[in-house]
């Protein structure tokens, strides 16, 4: 353990559970989210196991519906949405802007407890009250007529939402008010820009899912007749409410990952990130455009043709800022000194997988195509390429990148690379097959696809391949867990800046940051990727000569 670090500043369980240190809160999030990721991952493996062969293999239809519902709820609300902001946003953002902490440290700790309260509600409801099989979208009228366990799960989503709101609020104020002298807006690391854009979406969108869950709760409890058609309510209105949050929520998931990729591209290409301003502002553009496209989830739900056409066209616009990012990342590597360490492997993986996920998103945003692809495995593959191939791969890459700063130790690089290759192969085998299945018409959410076999005999082979892929993916992820734990106890001690990065968390803190981050507030005199100006990284020219 490094002396004087935030890890050694105080000891005991209480010092962790009552901490207001943003770095420790980031670790609290990391531990909780890792547990939920394990749960969600096991559920995914169970779902894929059921689908290894046509016919009922392991689970009945009810169990299967409950499995994919819980998989979706856990992964969306307890892993991906809080993931990057909660873990890396908390740990990295204040240090990157040269602050001693976030603006509201106690609120920050409270948000972790609120998040955990939401998780506890979900688990208690599941264990004690009953299981939910509505899918993670809780569509009415099915959800308003389903078992009372829906009440618990909607309460959980409502409560966990406040954690997201408070985290976002904290980060916006922190970025506005807590920057170190000289840390101007155009010197912010792109990770900070991305988290900032994310925070705007968290603050503006999450209250709407909150009130939607309240109304659904009341619909079920009191039959207020707003969403349930049997009482004169409108189920499509629920879908509007739900997607008004849940589409922007997609950008809550992906924007922070984009920020991580920008930092990785700069550091591991040893080059100024190409188009800094464009990448920074495209995050903000995606945040705002993201509020205008929710109707593309409802092309076949009975909204007017005019609405569908407008939503479809607005959806295409999202491709512009996203394309700006992708091209600039590629341009950053061009003529750079690309260093293929494990974090960079994940950055390249993100580039590949996210581009597939994004382009297929444009495809399902096309009205005529979507009518055919709606509710097929094509959509399942698309959003897994974005949410797992994008958001989670970004998170994993970021965790590898900041691991030495968080723990003060290095992980085994060879093991890291092997795991990355396993994840890449496993992921594509799992989900690329689903693009083929979906485009040929396999519907989602069926536990038994034997009816499909007459028209599509290749479905058995493709599903088997997909399931085998998920096992390879799981093996890669388990391998990461193993060498991470090994590193935690036995890993080599890291230096203050093992990657030769240029941002403040690497250049202005020790191997592990102090409890208050900096001995003295840094004075910022250059941009985050000005490698040619960073004497503190590579030494000055005078020393060389």
């Amino acid at each position: 353990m490094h002396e004087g670090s935030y890890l050694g500043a105080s000891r005991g369980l209480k010092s962790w559970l009552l901490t207001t240190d943003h770095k420790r809160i980031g670790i609290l999030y990391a531990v909780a989210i890792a547990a939920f990721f394990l749960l969600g991952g096991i559920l995914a493996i169970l779902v894929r196991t059921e689908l290894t062969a046509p016919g009922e293999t392991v689970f009945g239809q009810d169990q299967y519906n409950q499995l994919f519902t819980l998989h979706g709820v856990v992964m969306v609300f307890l892993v991906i949405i809080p993931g990057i902001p909660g873990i890396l946003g908390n740990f990295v953002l204040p240090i990157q802007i040269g602050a001693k902490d976030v603006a509201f440290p106690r609120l920050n700790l409270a948000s972790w407890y609120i998040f955990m309260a939401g998780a506890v509600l979900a688990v208690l409801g599941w264990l004690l009250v009953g299981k939910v099989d509505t899918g993670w979208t809780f569509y009415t009228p099915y959800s308003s007529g389903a078992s009372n366990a829906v009440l618990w799960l909607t309460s959980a989503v409502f409560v966990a939402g406040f954690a997201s709101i408070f985290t976002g609020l904290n980060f916006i104020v922190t970025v506005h008010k807590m920057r170190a002298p000289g840390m101007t807006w155009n010197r912010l690391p792109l990770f900070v820009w991305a988290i900032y854009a994310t925070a705007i979406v968290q603050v503006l969108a999450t209250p709407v899912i909150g009130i939607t869950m309240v109304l659904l709760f009341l619909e079920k409890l009191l039959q207020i007749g707003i969403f349930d058609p049997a009482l004169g309510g409108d189920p499509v209105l629920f879908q509007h409410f739900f997607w008004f949050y849940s589409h922007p929520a997609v950008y809550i998931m992906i924007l922070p990952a984009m920020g991580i990729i920008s930092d990785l591209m700069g550091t591991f290409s040893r080059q100024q990130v190409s188009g800094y301003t464009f990448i920074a502002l495209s995050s903000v553009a995606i945040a705002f455009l993201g509020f205008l496209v929710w109707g593309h989830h409802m092309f076949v739900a009975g909204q007017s043709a005019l609405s569908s056409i407008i939503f479809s066209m607005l959806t295409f616009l999202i491709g512009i800022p996203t394309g700006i990012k992708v091209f600039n990342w590629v341009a950053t590597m061009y003529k750079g000194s690309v260093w293929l360490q494990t974090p960079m492997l994940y950055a390249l993986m993100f580039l590949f997988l996210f581009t597939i996920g994004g382009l297929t998103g444009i495809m399902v945003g096309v009205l005529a195509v979507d009518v055919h692809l709606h509710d097929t495995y094509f959509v399942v593959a698309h959003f897994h390429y974005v949410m797992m191939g994008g958001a989670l791969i970004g998170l994993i890459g970021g965790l590898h990148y900041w691991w030495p700063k968080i723990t003060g130790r290095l992980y085994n690089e060879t093991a890291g690379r092997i795991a990355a290759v396993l994840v890449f192969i496993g992921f594509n085998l799992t989900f690329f097959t689903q693009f083929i299945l979906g485009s040929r018409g396999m519907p989602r959410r069926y536990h038994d696809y034997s009816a499909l076999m007459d028209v599509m005999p290749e479905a058995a082979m493709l599903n088997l391949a997909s399931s085998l892929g998920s096992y390879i993916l799981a093996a890669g992820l388990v391998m990461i867990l193993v060498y991470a734990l090994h590193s935690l106890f036995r890993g080599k001690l890291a230096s203050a800046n093992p990657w030769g990065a240029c941002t403040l968390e690497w250049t202005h803190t020790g191997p592990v940051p102090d409890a208050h981050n900096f001995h003295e507030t840094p004075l910022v005199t250059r941009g985050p990727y000005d490698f040619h100006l960073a004497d503190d990284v590579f030494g000055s020219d005078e020393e060389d000569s």
Partner: protein
Amino acid sequence: MSQAAGTLKHYFVTSEQQFDAAKMGMWLFLVTEILLFSGMFVAYAVYRAWHPEVFAHASELLDWRLGGLNTLVLLASSFTVALSIHFVQKGQNRKVVVLLLITLLCVAIFMVIKYFEYTGKFAHGIFPGAGYAPHGEAYAEYDIPFAPQFFSIYFIMTGIHGVHVLVGMGLFVWLVTRVVRGHFSSAWYTPVELTGLYWHLVDIIWIFLFPLLYLI
């Protein structure tokens, strides 16, 4: 300034920075409050657009005199809150206590009137949701389709607003105890200012609820 120095957290450089951050955080929180209510306003707008005649008819059952009185009471409370911020900035804490107590009185009047409005409705079978079964003179005629939606929306919106009013009451009681104990001065009065901002939002939401539910 010694008091201000005592309240400066270690992660801020100046009191101004700390105050600005707190105020910005509060404004952002108010934005989330507006969006929370916006979902209910949208539900109201959609159902009103679909069934304008039912909504116009049902709103006649709400007593505009009671609603109007509550509007006046809330506006008065916003005024006294604004004045209390003015005086806490000048360090005249005795006036602050008096003004906050007047505010609390206004809030209490609001909740008492709301209580009588609610129980008056319940007595005639006007409940949110499945319990809706209007009976008695002038009420029985409201047993029509989509009137339950109007009253559900009415109870939900005013109910959630009422919860915010109760939270405000708690905050004012807390503020009074802190002013009495001499916690605030012209150099540091952030909680008073932030509670004031919160209260104005609660007031503004009512300003929209009153005409939409009672008058049109």
